[in-house]
């Protein structure tokens, strides 16, 4: 049998359900691999071996109770686990033990899954590279001298390296999609309001979304409907997962004529061109579109994010500024200089902005664009201490319009650089039409093998 750690989420769940593999065997395999590789990757913040193995034994002793019965998973360390330390990637939270579990973890538990630990993240999810002053940087499984992307840095590294079959993350400004791009995994940033954020660390109430990273789009289709839908504890939620019965060949993809095509690394440009041709060959209609000025959307997103994050961290920065890392602190402090009127303007412009974007999309189900402009840079060259602010900003150049407008976006592995570093594309969809993106993603991955490329295991 394949190393259990490399099973897809679907395969792992089926193996336990059909009793071809016990939950204990699966959990032990994952824990052993994570223990072995974590010194190299720094993807894990905490291990819960004892609780995980006890949960596995309970699963093995009972009849299958849900679609993820007996499957161990690990998630970004920002989702509350009752009684467990949840660091949010911060030295400030080293003693934080929430009394209740996050809604999404309750939903996954209801489906039969259980956590085996908690994964690395950028401090308070406010950063795009995977640096962390308190825990050290997460390292890219394809080249440990390179960034994972963030802020769901451990989720990207863990899924890519076979430490978790899938992993929950959050995306406020690219935090699911960037690790997906740099680590070569598949990630969905969900539509705003589709998944409850109750019990998840907040960063920006107007922009925060919960998403997931997995080995392929089919695994995301298994996982995400399990956690989507209304939750009274998060008033932004309401709509359930909306199934789209169409085939990919009945859909249309748009390609922007500006912004998303500027200053691309050759490997990224090649990946975009090849992806367009793949979709054409699959029978998907492709057309060029002229979108509203995406830079203005980005600026408005930064205004909202900066203002809301500064408000959340006002007391922390006032009383414990020394416990924040330099990159996070510097970015948070910017938010105090945005006038309230500017923040309100940015919020008010969102509705008209969304209307303009949808009108420009015309009949397109998704816009295809690069996820990031280049493959993973080195950890050293993206450390804020080295004055790399412009490069750090460039990492998230293609992220923020989606967050500002509340759209779903699917990040797909789509190629590699000459040095073997993954690069990807994103499909930016219509609000609430997350399922259509997964249909396109599954079709793409049935025709390509980028998502199957694994990092080399250390000897």
């Amino acid at each position, binding site marked *: 049998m394949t190393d259990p750690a490399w099973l897809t989420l679907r395969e792992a769940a089926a193996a336990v359900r059909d009793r071809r593999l016990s939950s204990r065997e699966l959990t032990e395999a994952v824990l052993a691999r994570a223990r072995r590789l974590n010194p190299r990757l720094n993807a894990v913040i905490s291990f819960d071996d004892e609780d995980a193995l006890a949960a596995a034994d309970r699963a093995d002793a009972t009849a299958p109770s849900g679609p993820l019965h007996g499957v161990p998973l690990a998630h970004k360390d920002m989702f509350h686990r009752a009684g467990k330390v949840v660091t949010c990637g911060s030295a400030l939270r080293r003693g934080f033990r929430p009394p209740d579990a996050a809604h999404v973890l309750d939903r996954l538990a209801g489906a039969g899954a259980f956590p085996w630990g908690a994964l690395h993240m950028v401090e308070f999810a406010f950063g795009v590279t995977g640096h962390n002053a308190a825990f050290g940087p997460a390292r890219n499984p394809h080249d440990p001298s390179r960034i994972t992307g963030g802020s769901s840095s451990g989720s990207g590294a863990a899924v890519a390296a076979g430490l978790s079959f899938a992993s929950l993350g959050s995306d406020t400004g690219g935090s699911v999609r960037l690790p997906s791009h740099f680590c070569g995994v598949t990630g969905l940033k969900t539509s705003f309001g589709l998944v409850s954020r109750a019990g998840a660390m907040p960063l920006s109430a107007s922009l925060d979304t919960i998403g997931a990273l997995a080995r392929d789009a089919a695994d995301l289709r298994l996982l995400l409907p399990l956690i989507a839908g209304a939750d009274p504890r998060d008033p932004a939620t309401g709509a359930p997962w909306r199934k789209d019965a169409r085939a990919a060949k009945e859909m249309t993809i748009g390609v922007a004529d500006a912004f998303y095509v500027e200053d691309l690394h050759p490997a990224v440009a090649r990946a975009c061109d090849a992806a367009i041709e793949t979709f054409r060959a699959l029978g998907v209609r492709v057309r060029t579109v002229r979108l509203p*000025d995406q*830079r*203005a*959307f*980005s*600026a*408005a997103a*930064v*205004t909202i994010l*900066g203002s809301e994050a*500064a408000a959340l961290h*006002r007391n922390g*920065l*006032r009383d414990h*500024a020394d416990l924040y890392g330099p990159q996070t602190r*510097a*970015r948070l*402090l*910017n938010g*105090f*200089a*945005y*006038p309230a009127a*500017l923040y309100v*303007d*940015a919020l*008010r*412009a969102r509705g*008209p*902005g969304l209307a303009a974007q949808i009108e420009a999309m015309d009949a397109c189900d998704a816009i295809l664009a690069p996820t990031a402009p280049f493959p993973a840079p080195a950890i050293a060259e993206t450390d804020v201490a080295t004055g790399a*602010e*412009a490069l750090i*900003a460039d990492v998230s*150049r293609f992220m923020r319009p989606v967050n500002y407008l509340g759209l779903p976006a699917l990040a797909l592995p789509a190629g590699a650089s000459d040095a073997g570093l993954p690069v990807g594309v994103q499909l930016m969809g219509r609000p609430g039409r997350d399922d259509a993106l997964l249909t396109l993603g599954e079709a793409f991955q049935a025709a390509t093998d980028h998502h199957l490329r694994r990092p080399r295991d250390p000897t």
Partner: protein
Amino acid sequence: MPDPRESFDVSPEAARAMAALSGVTLGDGEARRAALAAVSAAVGTAALRDGLTLDDAAAGFDVLRAALGGSER
């Protein structure tokens, strides 16, 4: 075309004063960085609010390039 400079003080001193209202102290570098980030945000938001392109909104805004290249966008 509105010019954000007419209604928006982008100086580091202004940034420092605004942060102080929240009880947060900004050093010299932090205040300059925050001011530049605010310029970028003001231009982008002005473009959205007034239906302009970002380039139009930024015309004549001589610190925009530094703001966009300096910290956030």
